[in-house]
């Protein structure tokens, strides 16, 4: 019934295959050269067009806003929305199952120590379809105030950062993901480095690897690492515990020191997490770290 020339069918098949290839390329973690280039090209067309529309959109938008609400009611609405969000957050936290309340307590304790303003969320997925990426999905999104590039933590320490935020879900790239890189600072000595998920080239097999930029810095097993903090707290707020130095590798001729890190967070049992929607007013330094265990007690 549906007749078509074979040439036309071949073209159609080729186009569908091309679309599928694009989807596969773009769905994989990391920046693919083809799709990045395409997106960059898209922005070249989009930005001037959008700016042109913006010239007309701003007065139109103001007019629309003015029609919709007067200035006083806008302030009142914002106030009520804030109050509502706070009440809802309280309600949500009371609804959480009892066996999670302990985790939430820890989370609130940690966020209280650091002065982080957090939105509680539950990690609802942990495994990706192909297993390439270490990502988790949270059951909270932009409706809860979560945006891209926000820090995610739980009661023990750093979980990761938001890479994609939908209305009701958001995706966290875990700190153990191979593409994840976190600015880190050693407890006490304040030496800085970066923590990469997985192993780095020439480093030991690990969940996380610390690369310390200062070759002379004293570092030994048991040293703890916190986040360095990024510019304006995105993607990482300062002072969140990341993990403990497990093993220091001394490689002759290397440009940095490599250390294996044991994560502070148990990524296999990720449940309650908090998304830092507002960073601390000042760097909490090492105050978020739990008290150091007495070495004599271990012996």
């Amino acid at each position, binding site marked *: 019934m549906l*007749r*078509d*020339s074979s040439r*036309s069918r071949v073209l159609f098949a080729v186009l569908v295959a*091309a679309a599928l290839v*694009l989807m596969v390329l773009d769905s994989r973690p990391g920046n693919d050269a083809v799709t990045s280039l395409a*997106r960059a090209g898209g922005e070249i067309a989009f930005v001037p067009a*959008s700016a042109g529309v913006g010239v007309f959109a701003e007065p139109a938008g103001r007019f629309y806003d003015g029609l919709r609400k007067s200035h006083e009611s806008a302030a009142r609405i914002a106030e009520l929305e804030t109050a509502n969000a706070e009440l809802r957050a309280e309600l949500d936290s009371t609804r959480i199952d009892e066996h999670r309340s302990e985790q939430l307590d820890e989370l609130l304790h940690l966020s209280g120590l650091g002065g982080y303003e957090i939105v509680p969320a539950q990690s609802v997925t942990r495994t990706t379809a192909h297993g390439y990426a270490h990502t988790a999905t949270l059951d909270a999104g932009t409706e809860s105030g979560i945006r891209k590039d926000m820090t995610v933590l739980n009661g023990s320490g750093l979980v990761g950062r938001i890479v994609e935020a*939908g209305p009701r879900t958001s995706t966290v790239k875990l700190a153990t993901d191979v593409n994840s890189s976190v600015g880190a600072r050693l407890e006490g000595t304040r030496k800085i480095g970066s923590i990469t998920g997985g192993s780095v080239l020439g480093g030991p097999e690990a969940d996380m690897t610390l690369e310390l930029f200062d070759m002379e810095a004293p570092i030994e097993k048991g040293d703890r690492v916190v986040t360095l903090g990024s510019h304006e707290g995105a993607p990482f707020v300062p002072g969140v515990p990341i993990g403990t130095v497990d093993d220091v590798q001394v490689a002759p001729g290397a440009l940095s020191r490599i250390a294996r890190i044991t994560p502070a967070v148990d990524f296999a049992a990720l449940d309650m997490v908090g998304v830092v929607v507002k960073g601390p007013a000042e760097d909490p330094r090492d105050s978020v770290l739990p008290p150091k265990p007495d070495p004599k007690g271990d012996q």
Partner: protein
Amino acid sequence: MRALVTLFLVTVTVLVQATVVNRLPFEWGPGPDLVLAAVVAVALTTGPAAAAACGFAAGLAMDVLPPAEHPMGRYTLVLCVAAYLISLLHSNAGLGGGSGARVSRWAAVGVTAVASVGVGLGYALVGMIMGDAHITVSAVASNVGIGTLLTTLFGPLALLPILWARTLLAEDEYATIQGPTSVGGW
């Protein structure tokens, strides 16, 4: 000439969709899909291969333009398949006015509405297959419903000019004369 005008109109539609329609504060979710309407207009006035190419190009443009919240290629695939099927049904089963005949406006609007449902569901299906967490039954139902309604209402803004331009320019040439499609193939 016809191809150039079509290219220009579809490009303008894509840019308007990305910069104007997507900018509007729709509190209920989806807005009208003018690009789909433009692709329907092209698909009803050309052969399956050209329709598929047009759908592919328009979908790819929408994927490439910001915001990049879904994997590139998702809309490309759906729109390419939709355009191909519309054109195939048009030339074989007389969808939207019959082969060789002038496409009636109302029929074109009807095809747009049906295509909007199909594309909405297809897009959701691809997302579901790809594990998009936003795809839920209620979200798909409301988005497809609202999207179809808005596309049917506002889609003619893109559909009718393109349809008009293509029919007008076709009268000077021989583009509406469609030879019998060859039976061979797969």
